[in-house]
């Protein structure tokens, strides 16, 4: 598998389209999962995956072959998520943008279509997980998602978050406990947690 990834990366570095396509086929699903769980929105996940594909084309030459490819790729993904969350927070501080009739324009923007998204989430029975993830702080949520989707080690997570390895472990441990507890709670209790923004 490692050799296969090296071949894909080499092809992509040479500017060959098949190299990029194979990389996207290999990591696309995991990246999408990471984006979706981090933002709680299919629209944002789709958007971020598109952004990442462009960055991959532009930045592949900066990848140092001596390291593992996954942490490098998911570091870019992680930065994209942080930017998106920061922008969303700024938007929520500024307040909703309204049109002449006082109707929120943001409601019409893609990714803010809550009824549709709520329906999709209900369809895949991940509403409780979404709520549980919302309860975690941004850093802890990202660490857990990077462990799961990027298969990152605690050492790599500690480097990415610039914290001691023990701190990374403690945060993941606490976050996992919270997630597990909320996922195992009866449905009624879980429903009472819903509604908080990510």
């Amino acid at each position, binding site marked *: 598998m490692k050799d296969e990834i090296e071949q894909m990366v080499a092809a992509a570095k040479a*500017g060959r*389209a098949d190299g*990029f*396509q194979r990389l*996207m*086929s290999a990591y*696309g*699903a995991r990246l*999408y*999962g990471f984006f*979706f*769980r981090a933002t709680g929105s*299919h629209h944002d*996940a*789709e958007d971020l*995956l*598109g952004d*990442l*594909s*462009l960055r*991959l*084309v*532009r930045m592949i030459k900066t990848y140092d072959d001596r390291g593992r490819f996954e942490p490098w790729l998911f570091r870019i993904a992680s930065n994209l998520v942080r930017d998106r969350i920061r922008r969303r927070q700024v938007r929520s501080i500024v307040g909703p943008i309204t049109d002449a009739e006082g109707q929120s324009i943001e409601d019409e923007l893609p990714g803010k279509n809550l009824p549709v998204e709520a329906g*999709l989430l209900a*369809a*895949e029975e*991940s509403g409780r*997980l979404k709520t549980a993830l919302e309860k975690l702080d941004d850093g802890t949520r990202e660490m*857990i*998602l990077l*462990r*799961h*989707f990027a298969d990152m*080690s*605690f*050492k790599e997570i*500690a480097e990415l978050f610039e914290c*001691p*390895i*023990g*701190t*990374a*472990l*403690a945060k*993941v*441990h606490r976050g*996992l*406990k919270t*997630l*597990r507890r909320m*996922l195992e709670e009866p449905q009624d209790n879980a429903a009472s947690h819903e509604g908080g923004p990510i």
Partner: protein
Amino acid sequence: MTLNDDNLARVAKHLDGQHATLSAAEEALAAEIRRDEQAVASALDVHGANMASALAKAQRQMSVELAGKRRGLRIVLWGGAVAAAAALLLVVVLQMRPGDTASNEVASPKGPVKVVPNNVPEDLPAFSVTETSDTEADLELLRVLGSENELGESLDAQVIDSVLLEEAT
């Protein structure tokens, strides 16, 4: 038992696959984290039609970006080739200008070269050639001037002789 930073670091290294001898408490923590990760793993996985369409869209965006990059590279390469060809053409045109055959000799980096035939007397002013010139024509001119000078010298000698003769008489 409360675990300190060193304990946690050892557990993290153990879970990363590095060799670390753990105490019972550390072992218990490592096992707990493994269990929790497995418990939430299936819930975290994402499937569905949304993902397939997102992947297809990302692939399309990537192809467009790659095509744009290749187009940009082609433009740069063509631009470079055209500039090089234009420079080469300019050099060739400058080399082929008429009357430029002696220019290599006279326009050396050391500055203007004095073109003086060997048989010209010393008091004859030398000509500095700073621009393109026909060497044969220059030499012909110098020859004419040189012969004029000889004629002048012979006339001078005749005058002196006549003066000396008058003085003597």
